[in-house]
């Protein structure tokens, strides 16, 4: 009996839930951004905007003005921290819950609302032209990120791809295939596992017997690391390190961020059917906004008055976005035909004509 291989998974956390450095952390050894007030405030302010927008989106759904919507509450540090670690020329392959990353990168509120309001045009991001659109079939996006990373590698571009995936998503074989090929080809891609402990009603313990999700990378021979996903400093730093490795040709990393889904899975879900109020309460006790705000207040970078003023600002921005959304009209019936092919077949054009005619004669519809 000899040992053929050994592995371990490290866990990174800097701040405690009250926004103080953990005893074992020496702040001086942390990266520059943790001491840069502008960066710190930028991250926090985005978290606040995201939470406020998220709340608004839920309300829009409740009042019949938006379709099913997947709330992001609780994920702000995981999402904004990742965004802050990425370069503009990198690309992300999101799932459906990543508005925090998207908004930082330039996705507009009207785009988010249009998509969840039932219009594909929402995916035609004006500012982040290379980012992948929302992805509903679980785990499939991990391969798109790997493919984009392969393109970067082939073209010798110093860019990285980052794929989001949920704890539930890690059970799909696709995720593993993506990690495996990324490992073999040493692709500049990060598999960013946002472990919020639930996949709809399925708790982590029914999802996998693995103690951590970071260790899933071991199967592919790639490094994995776990981070407190409610600690935006740790999230950003861990991802910056992984991205630096990737950018320098050292290949992919699996980063697991531990967080909690504070809301229902989507507005169509009722999480109280399957999880206890006390568990949710515990989730609120460690949620990321409070922690970052406390951290900033300890540094005297933020106070209640600023908070109130900034929230006001957010509301105005959101109102603007919502109004823009309300002003978008129903797409024309031709929209479902016109983006399917560069060279549409004749038969499709015939069907398009038929649909146009019918939509002109709307009153006849049953």
């Amino acid at each position, binding site marked *: 009996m000899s040992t053929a291989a050994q592995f371990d998974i490290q866990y990174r956390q800097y701040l405690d839930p009250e926004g103080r450095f953990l005893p074992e952390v020496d702040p001086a050894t942390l990266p520059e951004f943790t001491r840069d007030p502008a960066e710190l405030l930028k991250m926090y302010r985005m978290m606040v905007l995201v939470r406020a927008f998220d709340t608004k989106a839920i309300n829009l759904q409740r009042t019949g003005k938006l*379709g*099913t919507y997947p709330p992001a509450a609780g994920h702000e540090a995981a999402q904004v921290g990742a965004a802050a670690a990425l370069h503009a020329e990198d690309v992300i392959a999101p799932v*459906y819950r990543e508005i925090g990353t998207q908004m930082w990168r330039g996705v507009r509120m009207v785009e988010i609302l249009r*998509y*969840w*309001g*039932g*219009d*594909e045009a929402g995916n035609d991001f004006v500012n982040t032209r290379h980012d992948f659109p*929302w992805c*509903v*079939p*679980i785990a499939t996006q991990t391969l798109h990120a790997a493919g984009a990373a392969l393109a970067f590698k082939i073209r010798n571009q110093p860019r990285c791809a980052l794929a989001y995936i949920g704890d*539930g*998503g890690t*059970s*799909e*074989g*696709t995720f593993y295939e993506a990690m495996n090929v990324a490992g073999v080809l040493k692709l500049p891609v990060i598999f960013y596992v946002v472990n919020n402990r639930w*996949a*709809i*009603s*399925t708790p982590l313990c*029914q*999802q*996998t017997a693995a103690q951590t999700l970071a260790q899933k990378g071991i199967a592919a021979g790639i490094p994995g690391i776990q981070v407190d996903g409610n600690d935006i400093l740790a999230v950003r730093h861990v991802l910056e390190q992984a991205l630096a490795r990737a950018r320098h040709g050292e290949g992919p990393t699996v980063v697991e961020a531990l967080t909690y889904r504070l809301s229902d899975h989507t507005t*169509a879900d009722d999480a109280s*059917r*399957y999880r206890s109020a006390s568990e949710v309460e515990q989730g609120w006790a460690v949620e990321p906004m409070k922690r970052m705000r406390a951290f900033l207040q300890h540094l005297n970078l933020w106070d209640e008055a600023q908070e109130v003023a900034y929230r006001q600002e957010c509301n105005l921005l959101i109102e603007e976005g919502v109004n823009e959304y309300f002003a978008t009209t*129903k*797409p024309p*019936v031709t*929209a*479902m*035909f016109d983006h*399917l092919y560069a060279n549409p077949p004749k*038969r*499709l054009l015939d*069907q*398009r004509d038929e*649909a146009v005619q*019918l*939509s002109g*004669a709307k009153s*006849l*519809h*049953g």
Partner: protein
Amino acid sequence: MAKVTLVEAITLAHNWEMSHDPDVLVLGQDVGRNGGVFRATQGLQEKFGNQRVIDTPLAEGMIAGLCVGMAAQGLKPVAEIQFMGFIYPAMDQIVNHMTRLRNRTRGRLTCPVVIRTPHGGGIHSPEHHSESVESMFCHIPGLRVVCPSSPARAYGLLLAAIREPDPVLFLEPVRIYRYARQEVEDNGQALPLDVCYVLREGTDCTIVTWGAMTVESLKAAEELARQGISAEVIDLATISPIDAETILDSVARTGRLVIVHEAARNVGVGAEIAAIVAEHGLYDLEAPIQRVTGYDTIVPLARLEHDYAPSVARIVAAVRATLS
């Protein structure tokens, strides 16, 4: 006798069969405590325990593959795939194993599996939640594809599907999951598979359809009746294998055929029905066949989905066209 919705009838059928056949079990994502995203398996885990109602990890191919292995050992798994747009990871197991195990082993091992999945759109769901790709599955030899159009048929056909010794893909039209209540006697009586159900008799034109489109088709038939046109409405019910006889008989009487389905037209199941009639009932046809279907586009998101699916007006127009 209770008045139940289609989705409640599904639950009743599960409950009956699990109570009477210890080999029947249920598995899928969120089917246990949560009772399924549409509550089709509500209460079953509480009653039958988590060895017979199994919440699985998130992987459709895994669910289908487990079914093959369990069925080979004589169990009768009933699996739920949350939406038809998420069935593709299970294709390999369905095409290459579930439908082939009997043939491959000359009957030594068999695969009595039911895969249930929602079918079609119309309820303002997000992307990929409105698919109706039955035609892909109908092309698979060895597979039955069934789609009920009422609570009573949901109950009777699901029982039949579970009792069938071979795999069945059972499609549940989401748009009518809760559309209407119907008296359903919970007596364990199955309805026959492999036959059509004539929902309305008529003499001028045959309308063949299935699932949620039966509702539009029946409405169209009523509208046509008001216009003095008598349309026969046939619910295909078992989409594969097709009960060609009932359709051919009807067309022999009416001379006209309109096929209505939600799926895209190109190589949809409507094509097969048209082909059967063009082969075996050509001389009965007094007018070209008409297909009223989803367009050959991707099902659009909510704001355009009603422009995509067949409407009463399109069906009425098609029937009138066959008569002009």
